[in-house]
């Protein structure tokens, strides 16, 4: 029973961390502009995050090393420091966007002024990280983030042509009535990046150590990463299908977070709207917690500080100060009034530049038979890992030029 509970908990964690404000914006907008043509990107990204999260969880269980420790060991001090700075800046931008996103969702519930709700969001996040044990953080945000499954019902209720949906799983060219190739490529890279955001791996591997994983937990790690991220991928696909059905025929290119709730309202009425907003609240909240903690994990693991939510704040002072600082800085950015949707587009594109430096050390370590012994990557996983890594490098090289050439995907 406990094993089942742990497994369910892990699946929920993976699902809660997978869908954040980036997915909610990029996926719905992708559907609105390209109908089902970006589904294959999500499928590919989901395979990538499953392969790499399984590897990072396996490394955490066997070697008890989280991802950022691997980065420091493989890249050395100087390059490791640069990766730390870049990763934590991407985390900070993402955290700020998530705090702003929570405020907008709260505003959709209560209608109060946004800046006051930004402050309320940051306070709620602080209280939940401070008072909840790690497993309860996973349970609260993961379990309640599952409410977003309302988008699966939404996608079905909007009655798409399922043959067209299935065709979207194979790469295809943009059709008449859609933006051109460069914008399509921008969306493909953006969606790929939003599925593979580095903080997911920092949090996942550190969470494995927080949960005291050992070699006995390897099968749970496999199931958690496979089932959890598959659910996350399906949910992202449901968002794309919902966006395609609700917005494409009406010529709408949704630019604001509140638009992402409209498909659920159109398909399921007011209950659909309420469920969609609740799901968004906990999914975005979970991502905010993950980014704040992931930054603190990165710093502590790089500099060798004591870390962990399982430790009392007095036992891990610098770690505690780090996640609080991240929340405060995120709050300051969100309070400045910058549109969270713009921040998240920015962070998603820049995250892809950091991806190779996060993913390579995981691949190298999981494929090293000296350290991993009988738990080393199988040939199949190693080949799949290298294929995904090649795609990640290609996306990293293309991200910034595409962002510039397409004016952030607008033309």
């Amino acid at each position: 029973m406990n094993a089942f509970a742990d497994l369910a908990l892990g699946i929920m964690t993976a699902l809660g961390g997978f869908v954040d404000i980036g997915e909610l914006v990029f996926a719905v907008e992708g559907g609105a502009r390209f109908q089902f043509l970006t589904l294959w990107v999500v499928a590919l990204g989901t395979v990538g995050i499953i392969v790499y999260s399984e590897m990072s969880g396996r490394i955490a269980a066997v070697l008890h090393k989280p991802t950022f420790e691997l980065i420091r060991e493989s890249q050395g001090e100087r390059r490791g420091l640069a990766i730390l700075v870049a990763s934590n800046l991407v985390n900070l931008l993402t955290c700020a966007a998530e705090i702003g996103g929570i405020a907008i969702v709260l505003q959709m519930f209560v209608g109060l002024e946004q800046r006051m709700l930004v402050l309320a969001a940051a306070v709620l996040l602080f209280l939940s990280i401070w008072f909840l044990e790690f497993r309860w953080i996973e349970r609260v945000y993961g379990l309640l983030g599952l409410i977003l499954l309302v988008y699966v019902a939404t996608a079905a209720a909007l009655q798409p042509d399922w043959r067209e949906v299935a065709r979207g799983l194979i790469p295809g060219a943009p059709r008449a009535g859609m933006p051109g190739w460069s914008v399509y490529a921008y969306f493909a890279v953006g969606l790929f990046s939003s599925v593979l955001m580095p903080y997911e791996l920092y949090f996942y591997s550190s969470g494995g150590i927080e949960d005291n994983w050992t070699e006995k937990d390897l099968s749970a790690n496999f199931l958690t990463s496979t089932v959890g991220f598959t659910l996350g991928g399906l949910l992202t696909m449901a968002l794309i299908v919902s966006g395609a059905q609700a917005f494409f025929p009406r010529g709408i290119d949704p630019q604001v977070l509140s638009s992402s709730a409209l498909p659920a309202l159109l398909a399921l009425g007011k209950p659909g709207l309420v469920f969609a907003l609740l799901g968004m609240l906990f999914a975005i909240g979970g991502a905010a917690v993950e980014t704040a903690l992931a930054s603190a994990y990165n710093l502590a693991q790089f500099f060798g500080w004591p870390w962990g939510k399982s430790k009392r704040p007095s036992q891990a002072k610098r770690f505690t100060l780090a996640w609080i600082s991240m929340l405060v800085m995120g709050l300051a950015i969100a309070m400045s009034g910058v549109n969270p949707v713009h921040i998240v587009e920015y962070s998603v594109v820049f995250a892809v530049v950091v991806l190779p430096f996060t993913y390579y050390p995981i691949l190298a370590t999981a494929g090293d038979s000296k350290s991993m012994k009988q738990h080393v990557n199988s040939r199949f996983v190693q080949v799949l890992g290298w294929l995904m890594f090649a795609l990640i490098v290609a996306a990293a090289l293309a991200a910034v030029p595409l962002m510039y050439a397409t004016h952030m995907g607008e033309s």
Partner: protein
Amino acid sequence: MRAIGIAILAVLFAVAATSFYRAASEPTGAMSPEDFARSTRLVASDAHEASLFVALLRGDRLTHAFAKTHREKLLESIRDESRSLRDPVPAELRAHAERVRALAAQAENIVADTQPREGDVDALRRYEGELAGIGDELGELAGIGDELGGLGAHP
């Protein structure tokens, strides 16, 4: 020493990233036909979305808080795009740009006016149709920008 290194790297990264963002997202100086088409298309999209919003409002399908928030966000989006349409345009687009600005202002006024008229079904029905018409006309004007920019028709 490490802390100083981190701070310098963080500032450098932030400055570089901000410059890229500005360069990527904001057209500078005179507006090219492509920029005109892009901004016009976004306002067209806002007008179509506003038409959908008014239809949902008319059918009493929205909660009060959601309607208030979504209206605010739509207005912000229209205002943002209208601001970028103030830049000078090539001579052949001047009259079209004037029309786009007028339509954007009209859409903004209608969306704002839905607040005091939430219970007025007839007014909302009229607004829904007007916003859809504005969206369609803006879409056609965006097409002119595409053609002048050499991109061909692009909805």
